[in-house]
């Protein structure tokens, strides 16, 4: 499968440095509409930074991030909020607001955008919770009362509640047991398919990659060193990809000790 001609997200020459440390050194990536792209790479290679640049949380030093052909790098204020209203994000640790009950976490985006009143938002939140396999009794609990797997489900519900057309997943299965990881992977596939959304995920978990990806890109030392359909990953012919997917200690990838 090749990348469609008109990508939903087009990233070109993305650069970001923190002080003297250059994290992104010219990332180029195209993601087609309704495509599920997974970016793999070792810890500290800049995967999360690239996603945070796309969401406007981190301002890139250079490069371009086009969404539906419109430049979004460097957007601020209301323009950024308008772009982000079309996106959802599942954070690695869930990042649920611990001062709010679960249903308000899920409905937060709807309430913030003024799309719904609190009275209208609650049924939508409970419906979205049902979509990720959680009953209405969970809605009134606080995030601290939930297990790690349930928190991930709630975070997924929050990411999709406003029916975004782009969803980002930051290491969605980290810290979960293999069964719960598999449940989350299935939910991600189902939800993204049902929304008709474009998905960009970053992960180390190869089981997750094989389950949720249409296409895979490998990030190493701030650049994309390989990209292709997930079906080609075992025969990529790329030493970096081979070492990564087989988890070999020896090879061209040297893990950095410092961040």
């Amino acid at each position, binding site marked *: 499968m090749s990348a469609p001609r008109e990508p939903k997200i087009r990233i070109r020459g993305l650069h970001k440095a923190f002080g003297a440390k250059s994290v992104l050194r010219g990332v180029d990536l195209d993601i087609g509409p309704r495509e599920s792209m997974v970016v793999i790479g070792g810890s500290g290679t800049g995967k999360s930074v690239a996603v*945070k640049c796309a*969401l*406007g*949380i981190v301002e890139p030093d250079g490069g371009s991030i086009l969404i539906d052909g419109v430049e979004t790098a460097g957007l601020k204020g209301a323009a950024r*909020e*308008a772009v*982000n*209203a079309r*996106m*959802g*994000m599942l*954070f*690695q*640790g869930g*990042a*649920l*607001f*611990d*001062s709010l009950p679960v249903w308000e976490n899920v409905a*937060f*985006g709807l309430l*913030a*955008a*003024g799309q719904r009143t609190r009275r209208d938002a609650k049924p939508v939140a409970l419906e979205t919770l049902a979509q990720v396999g959680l009953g209405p009794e969970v809605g009134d609990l606080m995030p601290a009362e939930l297990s790690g797997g349930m928190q991930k489900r709630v975070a997924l519900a*929050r990411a999709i509640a406003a029916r975004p057309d782009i969803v980002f997943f930051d290491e969605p299965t980290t810290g979960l047991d293999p069964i719960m990881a598999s449940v989350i992977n299935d939910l991600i596939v189902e939800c993204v398919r049902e929304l008709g959304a474009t998905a960009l995920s970053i992960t180390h978990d190869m089981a997750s990659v094989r389950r949720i990806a249409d296409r895979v890109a490998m990030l190493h030392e701030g650049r994309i060193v390989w990209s292709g359909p997930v079906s080609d990953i075992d025969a990529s012919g790329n030493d970096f990809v081979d070492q990564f997917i087989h988890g070999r200690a020896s090879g061209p990838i040297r893990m950095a000790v410092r961040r």
Partner: protein
Amino acid sequence: MNPLAAIGRAFLALLESIGRLALFACAAVSHMVRPPFYPRVLLRQMVDIGYYSLPVVALTTLFSGMVLALQSHTGFARFSAEGAVAGVVSLAITRELAPVLAGLMVAGRVGASMAAEIGTMRVTEQIDALSTLSTDPMKYLVAPRILAGFAMLPLLVLVGDIIGIFGGYIVGIYKLDFAPAAYIDQTWRFVEVHDVATGLVKAAAFGFLVSLMGCYHGYRSAGGAQGVGRAATDAVVSSAILILVSNYIITELFFAK
């Protein structure tokens, strides 16, 4: 190492910190007056700062008023001026002690908790999550807290004024054998609206500073649990210093002849 270069670097770092804090304060104030507003968040903060700080402020001002009555009586007895006790207690409480003590107590209670809460939100990516949900963290987290601190500390100080003077009254009547009517009369004759008003102006300034420092240090925290702990400590220490410095400046502005 060149010592002059080290001094220069430290001075530039200080200027940078002041500039960063000033920009943060300007951004927070501008968000207070621009919609959208979050009345539920504001109300929750007002209750947290105002209502839940009442016991600690009440106890502090009560015992300060009592001690002040005892000490001033000891001092004034040497000049046979015991009659001035009621006036001195009420002036000291309204002008200085209630606002400064309430400010310091709220800095310890609320400033630290704001820094810890916002700091935890920073290190657990909750602040990033707010941005992705089309919500400006400055508007949602910082502006309501600073506004609540600014509005609630004067109310706390007003209550503290009454309780502090009452503390002096209890000691005056039951320990120092003042006539209740004479003590109350002395208090009324000494205290002017100006005295109470300056105390409230100070309280508003201290409330602003305490919330600002709590939010600023929490917002900029990094480095996990240790960073959050450092943010809470920095918030309390910087609030306390700013309260004492600004107290002098405001006193100089209001009372300098």
